């Protein structure tokens, strides 16, 4: 099984090359074929993954740049596998959203490769390489194929994230000079005694924190997101919210929590405050939006806020029962996966509406239930999943996050619950505006879901239901990693 992960990273790159070489009319089918190959590979990866074994699996280790101790080191644990799975689910659907030309497909495939790399690299240099590699295609995709204000939004997205990356790189150089290693596992082992001391530690922490907080994004480093998501083509928005935003959360889990537990503990009230602000203010702002895409974008911030809340409580206080830590961490992992699916689905539906109407303001529609009951019905499922209705996937993660964080930081959690209410208001308002009332004239010729659209909608919805009702198959992937990480952090 050696080489599977490398193959996984390389295949989308070959795909990108193939897309460029072949006649341009075939771009999308070729991309989908390559996605089918990676999907098979990921499925095999999943089957071969030993859910009971601790530590990394399917490790590939090669000498790369010995002078700075940078190895080519890839491997997966539960969290990595979960994110690799998520990537393989979201990207094909993003391809199915709309017609796209050759360059678009090629860039998407490069992003995909970078994502696989980011989620499997176990060495900072390699990780950072992939991390940055995902940024540039995303920038180009927004800048070239985006909607209104694309130049501005793309530049903002790029500069803001890049600034964060630079800060993170500097911090890591500092850590390297102090400790002489880039290996995640070794660094994590050193974290508990305090990786660095004094002001240097705070500087290093600040750099990494900034880089990841921008990427997630965490309030108040989030203002690039609504612009970028609003402007990006739907497929790109799906990938941005579904997978790219998870790179930040992944970074928090892999880097910040294990390396700087003491710093986080000292700053805990502030960090928790930021997470709660993410949850509450983003959901409130979503309520005030009239553009559907912007609304979903704000809800993305809100949902990632739950992840942040769950992560910060893990290291928040001195008294942290293992049960609650495991609950919070499991919840965060579930939420990563669920939000990826649900938010991408929501963007997909907004894309369908926009394709039909040419506009995507909340008031540009009305009475759709009379004309397109299937579209409305399936879309409602995604909305209910996003507002955390029990029985659908969103609830499982949110419940566990809240369970863990309430036991550790009750007051912050009690405030964060407001986010659940406001999300419900946001969707109730959207459903009222879109689906109910008399059918507006401009929507009276809408076609209902077509065949390609059903190909996307049905499996995604079934997945939401499956996770909502019997989530054990996802927990099987992450449980061992959760236990291992809580041990590491307690």
């Amino acid at each position, binding site marked *: 099984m050696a080489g599977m992960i490398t193959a996984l990273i390389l295949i989308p790159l070959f795909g990108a090359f193939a897309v460029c070489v072949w006649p341009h009319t075939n771009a999308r089918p070729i991309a989908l074929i390559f996605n089918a190959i990676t999907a098979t590979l990921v499925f095999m990866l999943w089957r071969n993954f030993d859910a009971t074994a601790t530590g990394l699996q399917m490790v590939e280790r090669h000498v790369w740049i010995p002078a700075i101790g940078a190895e080519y080191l890839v491997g997966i644990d539960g969290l990595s596998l979960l994110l690799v799975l998520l990537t393989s689910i979201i990207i094909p659907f993003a391809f199915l959203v709309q017609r796209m030309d050759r360059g678009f497909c090629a860039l998407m495939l490069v992003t995909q490769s970078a994502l696989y790399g980011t989620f499997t690299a176990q060495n900072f240099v390699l990780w950072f390489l992939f991390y940055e590699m995902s940024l540039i295609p995303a920038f180009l995709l927004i800048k070239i194929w985006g909607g209104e204000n694309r130049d501005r939004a793309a530049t*903002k997205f790029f500069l*803001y994230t890049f600034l964060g990356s630079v800060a993170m790189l500097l911090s890591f150089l500092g850590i390297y000079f102090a400790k002489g290693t880039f290996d995640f596992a070794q660094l994590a082992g050193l974290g508990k005694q305090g990786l660095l001391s004094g002001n240097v530690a705070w500087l290093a922490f600040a750099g990494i924190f900034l880089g990841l907080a921008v990427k997630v994004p965490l*309030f*108040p480093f*989030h*203002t*690039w997101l*609504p612009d970028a998501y609003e402007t990006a083509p739907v497929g790109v928005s799906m990938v941005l919210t579904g997978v790219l935003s998870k790179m930040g959360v992944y970074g928090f889990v892999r880097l910040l929590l294990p390396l700087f537990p003491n710093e986080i503990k000292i700053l805990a009230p502030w960090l928790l405050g930021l997470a709660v602000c993410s949850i509450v*203010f*983003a959901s*409130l*702002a979503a*309520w*005030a939006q009239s553009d559907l895409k912007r609304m979903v974008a704000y809800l993305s911030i809100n949902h990632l806020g739950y992840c942040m809340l769950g992560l910060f409580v893990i290291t928040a206080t001195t008294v942290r029962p293992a*049960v*609650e*830590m*495991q*609950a919070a*961490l*499991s*919840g965060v992992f579930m939420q990563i996966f669920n939000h990826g699916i649900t938010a991408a689905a929501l963007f997909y539906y907004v894309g369908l509406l926009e394709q039909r109407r040419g506009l995507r303001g909340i008031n540009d529609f009305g*009475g759709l*239930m*009379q004309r397109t009951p299937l579209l409305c019905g399936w879309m409602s499922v995604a909305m*209910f999943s996003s507002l955390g*209705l*029990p*029985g659908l996937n969103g*609830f*499982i993660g949110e*419940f*566990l996050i*809240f*369970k863990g964080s*309430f*036991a550790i930081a*009750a007051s912050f*959690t*009690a405030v964060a*619950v407001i986010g*659940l*209410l*406001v999300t*419900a208001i946001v969707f*109730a*308002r959207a*459903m*009222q505006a879109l*689906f*109910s*009332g*008399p059918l507006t004239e401009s929507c009276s010729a809408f076609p209902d879901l077509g065949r390609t659209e059903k190909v996307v909608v049905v499996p995604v919805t079934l997945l939401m239901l499956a996770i909502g009702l019997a*989530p*054990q198959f996802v*927990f099987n992937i992450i*449980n061992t990693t*959760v*236990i291992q990480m*809580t041990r590491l952090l307690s």
Partner: protein
Amino acid sequence: MSWIVTSLWLIPAAPLAASLIILSLANSRRSAAAALAIIGQIAALTLSILAFLPTLQAPGYRSVHNFTWFTFGEQALRIGWVLDSLAAAMLVMIALVGLCIFVFSAGYMADDKNLTRFFAYLSFFSGAMLGVVIANSLLLLFVFWELVGLASYLLIGFWIHKPSAAAAAKKAFITTRIGDLGFFVGILWLYGGSGTLLFYDGGKGCLETAGLLGLGASATFVALLIFCGAVGKSGQFPLHIWLPDAMEGPTPVSALVHAATMVAAGVFLVARVYPLFSFGAIDGVTPSLVVVVSIGTITALMASLIALGQFDIKRILAYSTVSQLGLMMVSLGVGGVAAGMMHLIAHGFFKALLFLGAGSVIHGCHHEQDIRKMGGLRSLMPISFLTYAIGMMTLSGVPFFFSGGWTKEEILHATAHWHASHIPHYLMLAGVVLTALYMTRQMIYIFFGNRRAASENVHESPPIMTLPLIVLAICSIAFSVVLTPAWRWLHSYLTGEPAHFDIALLVQPMLFVSLALVAVGIGLGFVMYGKAGQLATGRVRPTGGQNRHRTAEMDPLERAQPALFHFLENKMWLDEIYDRTVVAWSRMAAHVSDWMDRHFWDGLVRGFAGLGQLFGIFSANFDERWINVRVDETMTGTRRLGRVMSAWHSGQIQTYLGMLAVGMLALLILYAWLA
């Protein structure tokens, strides 16, 4: 353990499965949809009766089936179902009442073009509610609880082309969710405190002694937080505002919401987790129970007063539901759990009867709902009239023949023996009078007096609609058999004591008090509204309109106490108050957040970017104006210096020799001076 306990999940699963199958049917398969829904409900009823049988074997029967839902980290999250008298009684009531409503719907909704969707939602509603009842875990209960909320949202907004229906659905969803937030936090607290969410788990459950002791003093807070959920679902003050608006849904939905499902869930929830409320009680009084009683009392009185000022046949019933739910909460709060549940079950029958009766009347009157436009329907719709009268008397609590009379009396008993205060008791007595009064008023307007606008061409409803009415009317009366003080079978069944038969206990002093109060209410009703039934014309001023000078068409109460009447007619202006306060404030918060985001936080980012740009401009200028200029100057200076130097290198030997001489001279002088 009986097989039925392990397969108890089949009871909610039957209607839920029916719902899924119906959803996948084509819109044109109307009769198939109705048949499937009814079959699903019959299956649920049969299984419920099968589940009911083992609970009769021994008093206090309780059997659970727990299993692991999923494992996170090293923790298993366990859920399960429980079969005890509380669950079994509710199951039978919900399944039976639900079945009547389903059959009625097949007739009432026959012309609706989305009939299949309607039955899918209806089955889903019933299934979710049955799930609430069998849950042995607060989490599982919450799951079904939210599904009940979803179903009610879908059904209230069923006529989705009507903006008012969509608004009412949204209001119901959000208002109940406000309560659910508290409930959710309560679940988290309970889970953290007792380590389990299972109610009964062989002594380790959260409602059993060990779990309660683990919670300790926080049980009060947990109970109050859970009560928030009940307040939302069961339409208690101050979250009752969604319930009257929920009348926007089709009438069978109202019947289902108000009788068997949804609102019953809140009362059931309190009864289910009652050990949390009564934990550490002194003389049956705990802080959380006092809150329950207070909220219940306020709700009961407020709603029965508002009912007096309404003209919409369904809204009057809606407020009567709110008030009856308040009464049940009072009963639970003062310790009369069995009494409250008995009233809930009885209420399930007679309120379904009343709503379906109202549906029949509305159907007959060509979808007119204003009681002032009806009148004289007694002879035109005799079956509807008779069954409605039975429902009305049961609701009013007429003793002896009607189940509601016995259960209400039981509640009054319980309130009389409450140690904390007697105020709720007297207020509930007043509530009895008010209930009889507003129901009499409604009866007079609809069935008595002369015929008005909507009474033209009225005919009795078809048998598919009257049959459920008759069944429910019979249930409302026959149910009394197990409620009388002489043979308090249901009471004993619910509390787990053996029942005795003693005819001497049949006549209690409270019975005469009840009788007197109801008589006062009905009598007062006839005195006040007897003439109102004789409204001359069908022309009625619009509700809350200006045309107030036509005294003949005014409500008698309006004529006597206009200010009071308008206060009640406008539902105490609570909707308006909420709109101007909570709703407006939250909306403002949303806009402030958006503004902050666009201008403040993004402004900061843009400010930083601007600073960077400024620095860039500064650097460029510094480069241009200072460094570059200095470099240029240096160059010019060098060139100038070179020019001067080159001037000296003239190549003339005389100048060189002259300079040499001057230098020698200077050196000599220096040497002489130093020496």
